[in-house]
């Protein structure tokens, strides 16, 4: 009899612990995946009801400009045209990204190429603090500073796309900046050295060599910022004016997918058309977030191939 041999032929306590631990970790990860699947399932099943149960035409949903689900038009079909919100969402997203990009890239270049010391000591903590400020605080400042400012400058109510753009610009600035910093830092040192050795100035090296090499990473950062802007709800809702009208300028009250959702979902009855139409907006939001995700992956793949 050899006790050690016998012990090796039996499952040990460690083996049992291992099996149990593996199961626990598998359970946790499965739960996360299940949540994601459930989110898609529930939002889709609600959001599609507008089209399958209430027989709203998908194209008119996307292209019509009147959002009053309670009222029926001349043909007896409900008026659920989501175009104003779609335009509002894309409007604030693109405008804020356009303004934020030069600031973010500039700040990132400052932090990596011009003055890494000041960047690390001052700009880095500033960026981290900006990320940490909750979105309702941005909304509150937008409401109490940005909106009156626009009102005084341009007249009108001050609410609208411009105010939303302003607030989102500050909100996505840190996201885009820190991702651009990562992208610039990932450019190998010898790229810079080679360019400088050829007699190029620091700016020539930065703009023609470093930024170009970091382009996929910078683009990813910008798309991340856009995804954040597109999905931001409360800060935008507080300053955009919440009128489901096609905006005819930047300072007239408008709305976004998220703003209509936050102000509307509590005031409608579950299962009614008004409610279903809101869930269709939520579904649209979900699909757009997916689209941004795919775009980021695509940029990543493109970057790898180079």
């Amino acid at each position: 009899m050899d006790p050690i041999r016998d012990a090796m032929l039996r499952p040990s306590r460690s083996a049992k612990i291992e099996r149990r631990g593996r199961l626990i970790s598998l359970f946790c990860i499965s739960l996360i995946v299940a949540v994601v699947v459930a989110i898609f399932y529930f939002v889709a099943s609600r959001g599609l009801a507008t089209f399958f149960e209430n027989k709203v035409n998908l194209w008119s949903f996307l292209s019509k400009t009147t959002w009053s689900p309670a009222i029926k038009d001349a043909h007896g079909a409900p008026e659920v045209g989501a175009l104003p919100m779609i335009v509002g969402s894309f409007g604030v997203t693109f405008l804020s990204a356009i303004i934020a990009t030069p600031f973010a890239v500039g700040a990132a270049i400052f932090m990596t190429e011009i003055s890494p010391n000041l960047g690390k000591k001052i700009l880095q903590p500033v960026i981290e603090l900006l990320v940490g400020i909750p979105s309702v605080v941005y909304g509150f400042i937008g409401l109490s500073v940005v909106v009156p400012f626009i009102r005084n400058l341009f007249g009108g109510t001050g609410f609208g796309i411009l105010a939303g753009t302003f607030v989102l610009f500050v909100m996505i600035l840190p996201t885009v900046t820190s991702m651009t910093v990562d992208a610039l830092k990932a450019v190998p040192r010898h790229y810079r050295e080679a360019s400088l050795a050829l007699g190029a100035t620091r700016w020539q090296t930065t703009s023609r060599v470093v930024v170009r090499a970091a382009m996929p990473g910078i683009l990813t950062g910008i798309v991340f910022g856009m995804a954040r802007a597109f999905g931001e709800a409360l800060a935008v809702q507080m300053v955009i004016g919440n009128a489901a009208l096609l905006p005819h300028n930047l300072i007239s009250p408008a709305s976004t997918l998220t703003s209509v959702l936050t102000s509307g979902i509590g005031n409608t009855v579950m299962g009614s058309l008004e409610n279903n139409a809101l869930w269709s907006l939520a579904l649209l939001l979900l699909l757009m977030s997916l689209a941004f995700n795919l775009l980021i992956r695509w940029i990543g793949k493109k970057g790898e191939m180079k």
Partner: protein
Amino acid sequence: MAPKKVDKLATGVLYVIAGVIVVILASLLGYILFQGVPHISWHFLTSPAKSFEAGGGIGIQLFNSFYLLLLAMVISVPLALGAGIYLAEYAKKNWLTDVIRTAIEILSSLPSVVVGLFGFLVFVLQFKFGFSILSGALALTMFNLPLLTRNVEDSLRAVSFTQREAGLALGLSRWETVIHVIIPEALPGIITGMILGAGRVFGEAAALIYTAGQSAPALDFGNWNPLNIASPLNPFRPAETLAVHIWKINSEGIQPDAAAVSAGASAVLIIAVLAFNLLARYVGNRIYKKMTAA
């Protein structure tokens, strides 16, 4: 223009950009603190809110925010640990792992309002939890999980593989090695990530409006029976948090002193978030030093 001049000009522009960003943050913080801090008093921090008259406080909202945070962390931390361990230790390089990673990425990039709406649909309506702390905590968990999981995974991966080999070679299982050797070594990173996550959760409002609700019924702070409806601990009562309160009084605007209350509440919120940030750095450094100390 000569390249040298362009270089100088560009450098100047970059300094201006960096300066503008610093000014933006400074004025943001300055505005909130100057407007808000004078409004903060013991009375403000402890008394209940008022709907139609001035002089209301944020006592219940403040308590709700912390209670909700605690509950959300209690649910999400073990799940994130388990999921992070799976990804760092057990996930094989195959299509299934790709699917899992994609799912987590999607969850982390979902707008929080969508997470809140899902919580409303499933926890509030389907499971009949109603507008409650529990619904809110579950919504916050979903909002918090992907980032926490990634943080746990990264922290575990940062521990050298030789440590795992050391445990395995002594006859310990991978799980035992991870729990008793790798996690303690990854603790500074994990805890820093948790505290930063807590800061995010503390300021989150969009996910809570339709899950934890927008009302803060009066609480009896002498009643600690979690099953009693007036008890602060009851997880089935609606619970407006500080962040939701700021949003609500600004969108409804029926309080005469809404601006002052929001400023005070914003200041409290910002101070709390700053405290979480500083705490994260301090605790992370402290544990790291303690563990590597001779």
